[in-house]
């Protein structure tokens, strides 16, 4: 399997950045970047990463199972992560999460029928100073209120209607 030219360049450089014989170190970054292109970790992707890093596919599966940010199922085009860890919780993170469930009509780790959004309740994202925080794909949004959340989602929805 091949990736976009940019990603292929990135991977080629990545494999050079570890000492010889330590290609396996690239397993995690390779998975996370490849996942952005493929949407989720497919069986085919596991085989490919195993081949490129010189490990067995089982070893890659062990890694995939360990890290919660590697997904074995397709996510929405916009993956909405709401933090309910302590700092966010204290300023309405949990309420925000429940609001998100209602707004999107889906539960934790589910995808909307149109495939546009997926929702995940996550632990601390390191944005405690700006709690409650959410992350949509790689973009952080700070001090999110239910109203702000609705506006964000509506804007994204509009972009695709």
């Amino acid at each position: 399997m091949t990736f976009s030219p940019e990603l292929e360049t990135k991977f080629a450089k990545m494999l050079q950045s570890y000492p010889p014989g330590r290609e396996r170190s690239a397993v995690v970054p390779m998975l996370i970047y490849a996942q952005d292109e493929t949407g989720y970790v497919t069986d085919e992707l596991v085989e490919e990463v195993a081949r490129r890093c010189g490990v067995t596919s089982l070893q890659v599966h062990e890694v995939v199972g360990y890290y919660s940010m590697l997904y074995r199922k397709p996510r929405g085009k916009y993956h909405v992560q709401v933090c309910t860890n302590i700092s966010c919780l204290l300023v309405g993170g949990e309420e925000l999460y429940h609001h998100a469930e209602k707004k999107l009509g889906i539960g934790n780790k589910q995808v909307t029928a149109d495939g546009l959004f997926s929702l995940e309740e996550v632990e601390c994202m390191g944005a405690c100073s700006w709690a409650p925080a959410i992350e949509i794909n790689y973009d952080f949004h700070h001090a999110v209120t239910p109203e702000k959340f609705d506006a964000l989602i509506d804007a994204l929805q509009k972009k695709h209607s």
Partner: protein
Amino acid sequence: MTTTAVETVTLTIDGKTIQSPKGTLLIEAARKAGIEIPAFCYYEGYSLQAACRMCLVEVEKAPKLQVGCTLPVAEGMIVHTDSPQVQKARKGTLEFLLTNHPLDCPVCDKGGECELQDMVFRYGAGESRFTEMKLHIDEQQWSPVVFYDAPRCILCYRCIRVCDEGMGVGALGLGNRGASAVILPNKVTGDNQHYLSCDECGACIDICPVGALTSGIYRYQTRPWEMNHVGTICTHCSNGCKTTLGVRNGRIIRGNNRDHSGINGEFLCIKGRYAFDFVEHPERLQSPLKRVGDRFEEIPWSEAIETVAARFSEVKAAGGKFGVIGSNRTTNEENYYLQKFARQGLGTSNIDHQRTGDLTTLLDALQGRGGALATVADVYHAKAVLIVGSDLSQQHPLLAFQARAGVRHHDTRVYTVTPGPVREDKYSARGVIAQPGGEIAALEGLREDLAKEPELVILFGDAIRGDAVRALVRFADSLSIPVKYVCLLDYANSRGAVDMGLTPDLGPGYHPVDRPGLTLDQMLKASDLDVLWIVGANPLRNRALAGENTFVVVQDLFLTETARRADIVLPAASAYEKNGTLTNVCGEVQRVTQAAKVMGTKPDLEIFGLIAREMKINVGIWQWQKMFEEIRKTVRGYNVPLPVVATGGAAQTNPVNGRVPSLIRPEEIRSAGDTLFTSGTTGRYSNVLNAVLESPGRLYSGK
């Protein structure tokens, strides 16, 4: 190699002062002093895991409890293994281990021989404080022989380590994390239909301390205490692994190596552990058969024996021509009796068996050397091992396991000269690809490395025969280092067949006979044989018998291609249904003990005896003990210590020391090339061997 004196340290465990070599793990030092530190994940011989926390002990001056399975002993260390704090820790650990454990012990296969049960009984608390729902995950079938019940799993990683380190397969791993962590097989699918692609050896099941991994053959069959456990020797390949057969009501229900007392330690492959099922295959012969026209009719034993004896006597009286083909799987006593029957009873030297390796030339070439034949243990202890012309992991799984264990424990250097990729490539010091016939030339490429080794064990397959064996020995001599040899042979008693003189030119103990008879090929090609007596062999599988009028008597378990040509077929007992001794590929004699009985069959020895009695000739008493006694007295090398054999040990025969004037025909020597999943006739009738996805497997695929 110089050995330095091992430094010892003095420490105190539970008030007992003990001395232990520096670097010893506390758990081992305690065990040697007779103090048990309980543990699940610790397993001698495999890498350390420190996952289960069961072995926590109190070490004075250490701020908290220490992990006994990874802590090396130190001078002046004072250890308490049974203090109130330790007891509390154990109770806590067990309470956690039981958090999601289903406690379905009444139906669990492991119930009664479960380490978790034993530990809870001994160290655990009777009550749990958990009131939460237990996590449940459905049971998965990973292969016909391996089932995984995740909730029972205590995540000790033993299975992962034994598969990776012991078997060299690495088919098991860990999926997920924390409370939802599970063992994963190597074929993970997106739809959760995971499965295994491996050796199907069942080592993971054997090593599992709980009932998380269970065997498709044995599961839900019986309670362990309802079985009789019969320690015997596997009848498949030549490595001679001890397998303990669990027998209930005369049926073999499981095979394992219950007490690790055999030469194989904790090792068994799929054949030794599961492939006993041919014993009760529905096509098993249970009555003598007589040819009537082009079909067979069942006849009583008395009539069968009378018919055979009458024809034998008639041909003998008329000075007719006999041919006798023996087996690679029958016991030493039977082989000895058969050759005696042929030579003395029938007056023929036309006796042979399918040769699977050139042992006789090796013994001749080793003239003047003592102790040049390696034992199974030598393959482990050797500093260097050279494998020539064999896919060892496929064909000789125990020997390959030994070499792997050597690499793991003391950096044995493994060299291979093979016609294709082999599993050993993963850990060998050097591997050379050489086509059959080119092995000896290829060895020159390894000369420099091999000459630097302090010692060497050479294992060679059937490609090395005749003059190539002598060339191999000359090459090894030129290295000027101590060398031991293993001539690789196919089946459970291939070695015993040669030793007992199932050969046309050599009698028992390699004594040359006056007038050598016909070889196996020559017998099949002879059109003037009056009688051909074939015991436990299938030479007509893909060849025809030239003699159209030859009276053929076959003793076998099944109606093989050979048996179909017979005039009389006598249903024989398999090695699991008889007593006697077998000699493994390294010349180690081991005791075979009867585990089951299949109605209508008789052990080959009894069949020989009954025919002899009917013919009114005296070949000897057909009791295995009497015959073994005669073998010990008369066959060179077999004067092995009786107590060793009687108590289930392996006694190496002292082989002859050269001067074997063999008329070997190298072209007749060929291995059947069995893989891990085939085993000649018995393998064809084993449902397990045929059921696994990997069957029949392929040699030199690098697996």
